[in-house]
């Protein structure tokens, strides 16, 4: 089936739709930042975007390339120090949604951004935690946006950087973690949500033109589909033009570096 949007576009649009207007959102750089800024231009003009570098209520006209770009500070309601962001605003319980990316995740949405292989003799040393361990536990809810493949959706993580539902069921609640945890994982193929009982990620919405076979082939465990699994609404004309305009203006502002966002 031929479509007039890319898999990356439907991923970003689907992720943006998840952010409700007025939500206080702690935003990771990259895909989450793109989705959150798209949402702000569409249905969520009053979403408050917080970046870990200190800007609260950032309203960048183009996407930031780094987590501490000047445009975030210039357009924010307030800019506070990094300790204050983590202590008062995140740990203080002011954040509704933590919007994260991931290098690897497992079926219970535990996230690894630390190492591939043995911790002390890593095959690949990844950048590490950043703000994610505390965002994933202190934000009231968590959204994850990530491209789906056998490299990113793995059976077993080499390191849990940020807690999802741990071993599933009520394991997360039993630790006393304040936040409810992941509510959805949005990929370039589908949307997955944790099962209410087991907390295992279940496909609840398949993007147009994507087969169940392809989703299985790109998941490192035997992935389940929910009984009421449906097709993702394709991006509207407005969603697509708004996203493309945002990316084009970002590329124009940052030069060729704009594609990195």
């Amino acid at each position, binding site marked *: 089936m031929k479509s007039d949007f890319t898999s990356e576009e439907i991923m970003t649009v689907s992720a943006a739709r998840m952010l409700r207007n007025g939500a206080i959102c702690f935003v990771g*750089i*990259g895909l989450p930042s793109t989705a959150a800024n798209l949402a702000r231009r569409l249905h969520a003009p009053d979403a408050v975007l917080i970046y*870990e*570098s*200190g*800007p609260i209520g950032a309203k960048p006209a183009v996407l930031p*390339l*780094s*987590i*501490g*770009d*000047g445009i*975030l*500070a210039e357009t924010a309601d307030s*800019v*506070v*120090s*990094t*300790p204050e*962001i*983590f*202590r008062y605003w*995140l*740990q203080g319980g002011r954040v509704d949604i933590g919007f994260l990316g991931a290098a690897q995740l497992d079926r219970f949405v*535990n996230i690894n951004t*630390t190492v591939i292989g043995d*911790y002390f003799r*890593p*095959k*690949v*040393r990844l*950048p*590490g*935690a*950043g*703000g*994610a*361990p*505390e965002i994933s*536990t*202190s934000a009231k809810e968590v959204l994850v946006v990530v491209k789906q493949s056998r490299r990113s959706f793995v059976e077993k993580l080499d*390191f*849990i*950087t*940020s*807690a999802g539902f*741990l071993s599933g069921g009520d394991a*997360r609640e039993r*630790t*006393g*973690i*304040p936040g409810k945890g992941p509510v959805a994982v949005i990929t370039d193929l589908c949307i997955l949500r944790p099962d209410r009982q087991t907390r295992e990620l279940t496909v609840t919405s398949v993007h147009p033109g994507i087969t169940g076979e392809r989703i299985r082939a790109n998941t490192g465990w035997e992935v389940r589909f929910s009984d009421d699994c449906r097709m993702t609404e394709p991006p509207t004309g407005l969603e697509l033009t708004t996203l493309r305009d945002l990316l084009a203006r970002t590329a124009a502002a*940052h*030069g*060729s*570096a704009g594609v*990195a*966002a």
Partner: protein
Amino acid sequence: MAQWSLLSEAIAACVHDGDIVALEGFTHLIPFAAGHEIIRQGRRGLALVRMTPDLIYDQMIGAGCAAKLTFSWGGNPGVGSLHRFRDAVENGWPAPLAIEERSHSDLANAYVAGAANLPFAVLRGYVGSSFEQMCPHIRSVTCPFTGERLAATPSIRPDVAIVHAQKADRKGNVLLWGILGVQKEAVLAAKRSIVTVEERVESLDAPANACILPSWVVDAVCLVPQGARPSYAHGYYERDNAFYLRWDAISRQRESFRAWLKEHVLETADFVQYLRVLGSGGRQEAVR
């Protein structure tokens, strides 16, 4: 009282082999000039601390200055890996690098604890993660009032902190604004501190509650315009995103990194000359 100094003199006086050194700046105001001077002076065995190692620690690690790194996010922002950092951790080149890994929230809290003269930081963090099993510095305490178990991590107390700021006055009082990161905490947590600035002014003319480091908590203030390039200084210049992209190619191989370091840092006298060489190199590449 802060002494107005040449950067080379300040580094020579304040940074010694084996010191715990924190160069801070969260994407913004990263003290590149000071990092280069540490490389030029051939410091070895440093225990580096920095939330986001960024390109400056990639360069210092690749140059062989570091024995240890305490950090919370070690990537090239918006680009990908820090190749020199990875080569040191994965292959021990040019020297083995011990790592003390934290989260942002932890390190930010640990600087606050250091500034407050406390031995450890306490935070609601790391629950459910692998950190507690793999990282011996991440432990826990039980709240004596509620019984809640909380993460406890050692405070950061550097021998020397180095930050870059926008302005300092004649007496060496320092003003910075924009994204502030943990700079103030790093300076107050450290035994000694160096601040490089864009501008020397008669008076700071800052509003109440501005982020000011009084002269008497700083050891040396150095006038180094553009000293945060290729990061940015709010109100002075923008981030050089193109350089961050180029660094990926420069740093990927040991040989290309060494050649770059030799030409741009080891064989330049100071940051002014570095910027000149960098500028001419940029032009040659553009012609190519």
